[in-house]
């Protein structure tokens, strides 16, 4: 089922179009174009994008069974399944336990889920006859993904990036240059993602006639939150197919990190309506697939230095949307903080705010320190260096897996006596990106000690 925002672009009370008058016509045109090329029955746009995703971006990405990680958490004791690329059969965990699967968006060309969205939007920009795209970037991943899509589709590209982030994510700045994009430093405000968005909007206001503003997450004025969600839904669509093939059932828990919310919504969307025990008989029916987003707790939620708009924010208007924000009593936007630049943002997408408000999605937060441990664990146990953003989700998944494994142990004793088989807990984590971009900042945090 496709949930659509209302006429005004609102999900419940969240969303809307709080944009300068200069942009309103452009937003209407964007909505029309998106309806025509994506939401209608028109096939050619979807075919063209599908081909790019397959042959250029490297989709579908694998759903990988993280055996070592699962074992470390006390689950999946006898799993025989190694990684499945969606083609494996039931991994055959004899006595149940907890199994962690990773949706490998880190293997998308460019190293993050961001390219799913930028290919879609660049294609849309081209159809709309725009010659130039602009984008904001925090971690640099969206900037890199925009530069790639613009290069392959023959569009001029300029990326706005806070000067603080330019220092933190140097490798991505080089990559954007190599890809032929212009990187424009933003030296106002907190010099991070929020200010890069401000600057992009200012550029768009000025060049709206030939320029397409390519937002990198499910944020901004309507129709952007809808557009980005639609282009990221491919993550969840593949995940669902793959987990059904591998395990014959839906997962119990799906976890993703949340900056603006695009990898989370993209992953969650296909599971919103689902019950976890679908396709399995003899179980209590009707329990939903648990969906958990993980925000940046930075130095700790109690310190005020974090990026957790949903866990700790209040409602207000920023960047064209009514959503949850980090702000003071007057309504001035506070500086967010996280060592993961992609989560260092004082707002969040309106649809996610709506889903959290309605209770369907639960939110948690992981501190820098907890995240760093998860970063190390995944690197050493599975040979995968995650993006710092994604490592937030890994942290929660690992803690939750341990908790569930412990609980399962207790239940098992009872189950043995009653000669019942118990079910393992299936956890899917969206590994939204790889951590190559972060190795220098991690080295700095670790003080040169290395892992």
């Amino acid at each position: 089922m496709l949930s659509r925002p209302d006429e005004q672009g609102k999900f419940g009370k969240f969303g809307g179009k709080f944009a300068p008058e200069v942009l309103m016509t452009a937003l209407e045109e964007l909505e029309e174009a998106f309806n025509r090329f994506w939401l209608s029955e028109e096939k050619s746009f979807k075919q063209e994008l599908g081909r790019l995703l397959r042959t250029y971006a490297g989709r579908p990405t694998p759903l990988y069974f993280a055996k070592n990680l699962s074992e470390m958490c006390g689950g999946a004791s006898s799993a025989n399944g190694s990684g499945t690329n969606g083609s494996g059969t039931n991994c055959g965990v004899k006595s149940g336990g907890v199994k962690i699967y990773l949706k490998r968006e880190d293997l998308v060309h460019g190293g993050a889920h961001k390219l799913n969205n930028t290919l879609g939007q660049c294609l849309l920009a081209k159809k709309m006859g725009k010659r130039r795209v602009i984008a904001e970037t925090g971690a640099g991943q969206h900037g890199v993904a925009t530069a790639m899509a613009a290069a392959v589709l023959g569009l001029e590209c300029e990326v706005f990036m806070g000067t603080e982030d330019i220092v933190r994510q140097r490798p991505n700045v080089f990559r954007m240059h190599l890809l032929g994009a212009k990187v424009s430093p933003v030296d106002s405000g907190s010099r991070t993602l929020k200010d890069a968005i401000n600057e992009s909007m200012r550029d768009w206001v000025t060049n709206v006639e030939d320029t397409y503003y390519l937002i990198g997450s499910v944020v901004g004025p309507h129709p952007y939150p809808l557009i980005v969600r639609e282009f990221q839904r491919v993550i969840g669509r593949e995940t669902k197919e793959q987990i059904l093939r591998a395990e014959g059932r839906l997962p119990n828990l799906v976890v993703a990190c949340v900056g603006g919310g695009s990898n989370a919504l993209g992953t969650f969307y296909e599971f919103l309506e689902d019950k976890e025990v679908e396709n399995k008989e003899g179980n209590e029916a009707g329990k939903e697939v648990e969906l958990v987003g993980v925000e940046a707790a930075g130095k700790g939620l109690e310190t005020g230095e974090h990026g957790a708009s949903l866990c700790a924010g209040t409602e207000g208007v920023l960047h064209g949307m009514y959503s949850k924000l980090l702000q003071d009593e007057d309504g001035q936007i506070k500086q967010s903080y996280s060592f993961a630049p992609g989560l260092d943002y004082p707002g969040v997408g309106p649809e996610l705010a709506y889903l959290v408000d309605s209770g369907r999605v639960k939110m948690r937060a992981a501190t820098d320190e907890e995240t760093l441990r998860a970063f190390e664990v995944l690197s050493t146990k599975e040979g995968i260096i995650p993006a710092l953003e994604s490592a937030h989700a890994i942290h929660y998944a690992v803690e939750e897996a341990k908790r569930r494994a412990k609980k399962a142990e207790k239940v098992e004793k009872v189950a043995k006596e009653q000669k019942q088989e118990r079910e393992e807990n299936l956890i899917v984590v969206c590994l939204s990106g790889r951590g190559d971009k972060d190795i220098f900042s991690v080295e700095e945090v670790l003080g040169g000690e290395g892992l």
Partner: protein
Amino acid sequence: MNLEEKFGALKRKGEKALVGFVTAGYPSAEATTKIALAMLKGGVDILELGLPFSDPIADGVTIQQASERSLRAGMNPDLYFEVAAGIKKVEKVCLTYYNLVLQRGLEKFVSDCEAAGIKGVVVPDLPVEEARPLLKVCDRYDETDLIFLVAPTTTEKRLAKILEAASGFVYVVSLLGVTGARETISSSVSPLIRRIREQERVGGREVPLAVGFGISKPEQVRKVCGSGAADAETDANADGAIVGSAFIKIIEQGLARGSEGAGDEEKMLREIEEFAGSLKRETLVA
């Protein structure tokens, strides 16, 4: 006087309105009062006082920096209304972003405006589609209008919607871009004004039109306010001109001149008054 009455009174005298903008609290709350008085002495008819927001997406670098400095110096909504109330004998307009209105509460914000003698509120990130709640509150306060913006990209359909809701005056955005001084006046102004007047005629309701964004020189004010007697092609014949960044620039320069950031206040105030005077002269069209 409410805003429409003010425009009317000027018109009867053969004048157009000079609307002068400054960011409240830049560089300090006390300075704002003095700066405002200098602007009025020079001939500013309507004073637009900016209530600074942390993320002003419609503003260019001049007003951005003024906003940042003002906020660092402690400007906040309570203080803002205090400062505004202290500036008397002039029609005032508040320019701010929607989140500040929302967090104070729409009702409280508008009643604070009215108490401080603020006759209109301009909210650049509140298009007509989202304006209903604030509009409803403003409708209950006779003396405070919600001022809408119209841009060169505004379609006829949107224009009709905006004019239906508009009161006080319409803020005509002269160009595609953010606030900030420009060298020339955009060629889109004249046709845009004609387009709005035509729609107003159809709608049967005339709201004054004031042109802003990019106006920083007397000759630009002349083009915006000119009745077409001199040059029918380029004269826009608007009802007023709005000048902002150019005033901020004078304050900026004054601050830079002074030692230890204290600035050369007297000279700066004199310059502001003279500059306002040079702009005002161009609005005496009759």
